[in-house]
C-alpha cells in the first residue's frame, strides 16, 4: 500500500480524507436506521442508546467523531486549496487539520466519559 512514491505528507492527507469519507459513508445507513427507530420502535432505540455507556462503544464513538472532524477540516483545506489564492503551506495546513480533528474529537470523548 505505502509504496515509496507515496510516503509523503500530502499523500497521507489524501489517504486520510479517502478513508474517513468511506468510513462515514458506510456508517450513514446505520445512523439513519437507528434514528428512524424513534418512529417505529422507541423502546429498542433506547436500548441501542444505552449501549453508549459501554466503554468500547465510547471509543468507537470517539473514532466516528474523529472521522467526521478530520474529513471536515481536511475538506476545508482542499476547498481553500482549490478555490482561494494558492498557499504554499499545504503540509502545515494538512497537519493543522489533523490536530484540529484530534482536539474536537478529544473534547467529545472527554464529555462522553
Amino acid at each position, binding site marked *: 500500500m505505502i509504496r515509496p512514491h507515496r510516503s509523503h505528507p500530502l499523500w497521507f492527507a489524501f489517504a486520510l480524507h*479517502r478513508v474517513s*469519507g*468511506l468510513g*462515514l*459513508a458506510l456508517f*450513514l*445507513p446505520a*445512523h*439513519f*436506521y*437507528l*434514528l*428512524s*427507530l*424513534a*418512529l*417505529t420502535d*422507541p423502546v429498542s*432505540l*433506547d436500548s441501542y*442508546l444505552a449501549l*453508549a*455507556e459501554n466503554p468500547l462503544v465510547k471509543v468507537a*464513538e470517539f473514532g466516528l*467523531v474523529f472521522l*467526521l*472532524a478530520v474529513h*471536515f477540516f481536511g*475538506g*476545508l483545506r482542499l*476547498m481553500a486549496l*482549490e*478555490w482561494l489564492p494558492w498557499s504554499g503551506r499545504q503540509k502545515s495546513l494538512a497537519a493543522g487539520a489533523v490536530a484540529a480533528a484530534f482536539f*474536537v474529537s478529544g*473534547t*467529545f470523548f472527554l*464529555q*462522553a466519559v
Partner: protein
Amino acid sequence: MLDMRLYMLQRITALIMAPLTLGHIAVMIYAVQDGLSAAEILGRTQGSLAWFLFYGIFVVAVSLHAAIGLRVILHETLGVKEAALSVFTWSVCVILLAMGGRAVWAVTFL
C-alpha cells in the same frame, strides 16, 4: 469520470455541510454530556421546524456528497465505469435520501 457538473455538486454540497457539520459536532458534544436517551433527543427535535430544516438540508447534501465520493472510490479502486458507475452513484444517492429522510421525519415530525 468526475466531470464539471459532478465536481461542482460535490464542492457545493461540501460548502453547505461545513456549517451544518460544525453545528452537528457541537450538539453531539453538548448532548453526550449526561448520556443519550430517546426522550432527550426527541424532546429537542420533535415539532421543531428549525431542526427539520437543519437535518433535512444535511441529509440532502450528504446523500449527494457521499454518492459522488463513493463513485470516485469505486472507479479508481475497482475500475467500474460508464453506465454501471452511474447506476451505482444514483442508487447510493436515492438509498441515502430515503433512509435519511425517514430518520429526519422520525425525529422531527410535528
